């Protein structure tokens, strides 16, 4: 199983625990990754302030064109924002020959051409559909027994296309959590928005969104919240103190990447592989209690 891994800018910084844990986990599951040569940023969800729509499309098409020319493997994006930007551009190009022509006339300025042959996939899609729940279960040596996890799917990992999971009632992340031996608690806010890219500049408005998500997760018994998006992880984890101050709450919920939980359940090193020491709110306590 060979793929291009497009990890994006955040996974080298604020989302580093995602990338560090993804590598040993995917290796254990027989996935091989290559990097797209000299890749560029996807533009995330806020670039429209500075760029028109075609420029953002061309930005993403550059990565697609390079991947197509190099090897044509499916591109796997762990970051939900990278995923949605890239799959959106790819779908629109594939459905509209006129757009492909415009995009290619821009790519030609740098000697590139895209034919529309690449598939863009989310990491949850690949884990669920290519690797499969059975293979993941086989890799588990320390099941997360009794651990109650609120699986936070967020927005951009399933919407708008629902390529691999329901846009209204996603279940893939819960099935993956269960494969690790954890209990996926009911969590109606699992697809509610955290504020995403405008959380920082619009914090006064977005804190309430995060408060509601944390409240829902803990109310349903979640001991920790799992996520597959660096923006969700950042917004849910970093501002709990501020939220407690503003709303008189007492949240102290660890926010972990799905791949960190996988590394723990696969019996890997808590620091080197699961990167738990990267987390600001420590998840070690509940995890050690679960694996015994």
């Amino acid at each position, binding site marked *: 199983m060979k793929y291009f891994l497009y990890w994006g800018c955040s996974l080298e910084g604020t989302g580093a625990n995602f990338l560090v844990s993804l590598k040993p986990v995917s290796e254990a599951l027989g996935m091989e990754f290559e990097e797209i040569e000299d890749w*560029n940023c996807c533009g995330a969800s806020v670039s429209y302030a500075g760029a028109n729509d075609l420029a953002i499309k061309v930005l993403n098409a550059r990565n697609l064109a390079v991947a197509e020319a190099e090897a044509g493997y499916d591109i796997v994006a762990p970051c939900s924002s990278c995923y949605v930007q890239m799959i959106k551009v790819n779908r629109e190009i594939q459905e509209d020959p006129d757009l492909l022509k415009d995009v290619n006339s821009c790519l030609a300025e740098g000697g590139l051409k895209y034919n529309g042959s690449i598939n863009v996939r989310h990491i949850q899609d690949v884990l669920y559909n290519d690797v499969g729940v059975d293979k993941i279960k086989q890799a588990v040596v320390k099941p997360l027994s009794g651990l109650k996890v609120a699986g936070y799917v967020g927005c951009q990992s399933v*919407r708008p296309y629902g390529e691999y999971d329901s846009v209204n009632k996603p279940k893939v992340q819960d099935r993956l959590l269960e494969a690790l031996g954890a209990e996926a608690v009911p969590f109606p806010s699992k697809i509610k928005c955290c504020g995403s890219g405008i959380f920082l500049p619009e914090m006064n408005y977005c804190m309430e969104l995060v408060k509601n998500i944390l409240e829902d997760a803990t109310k349903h018994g979640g001991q920790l919240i799992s996520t597959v998006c660096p923006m969700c992880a950042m917004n849910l984890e970093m501002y709990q103190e501020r939220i407690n101050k503003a709303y008189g709450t007492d949240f102290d919920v660890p926010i972990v990447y799905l791949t960190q939980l996988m590394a723990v359940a696969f019996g890997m090193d808590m620091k080197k592989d699961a990167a738990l020491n990267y987390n*600001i709110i420590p998840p070690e306590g509940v995890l050690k209690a679960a694996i015994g």
Partner: protein
Amino acid sequence: METMINYDPTFAEEVFQNVDAGEEIKMCMNCGVCAGSCPLRHEMDYPPRQIFSLIRSGKRDEVLNSKSIMLCTSCYTCVVKCPRSIPVMDVMHGLAHYAIKQGILTRKLTASFGGEFWNQVYRLGRVDEKDLPRRVFFSQGLVEGIKSMLGFMDIGIRLMLHRRMKLLPEKKIKGIESMRKMLDKAEKLGKGGTVA
């Protein structure tokens, strides 16, 4: 309220011509599902449905000065829910881009955040997560910049201590010059800038 206003197609034409995804509003039947599904609807002056009505009634200033068009979290809920398959989010982004290009900065910090984000992409080909907030904060003036930096120092230090901050400055990608040529052409070829 807006049903009492007469239709005036002038601004709608401007939107169709110049705003990315602007023509999509032709399909709107004003059902309000977009407004009902939006996470920040309660902070908006006009929910998306009303923005579309205002466009049809020629209310240029109300639309372009509305804070709603700047408050999209890009969650795609409205896109999924719209019964007429209008990419509402894309229209809001298109309007925000158009308003900013006309120099209208209803949400200064958000406009600066998105604008700086794009500047970094254009300058480096990548985004430097530690440099971005600094530039955004200081775009609000020196005093505001220092205040905001101090206010976020706790978060910065924690991220650094937990190895979640790339310490070295982000380097330009190798193909930066050719990437910029591609983007320059796209800016010329695409919509979103000129006033009709």
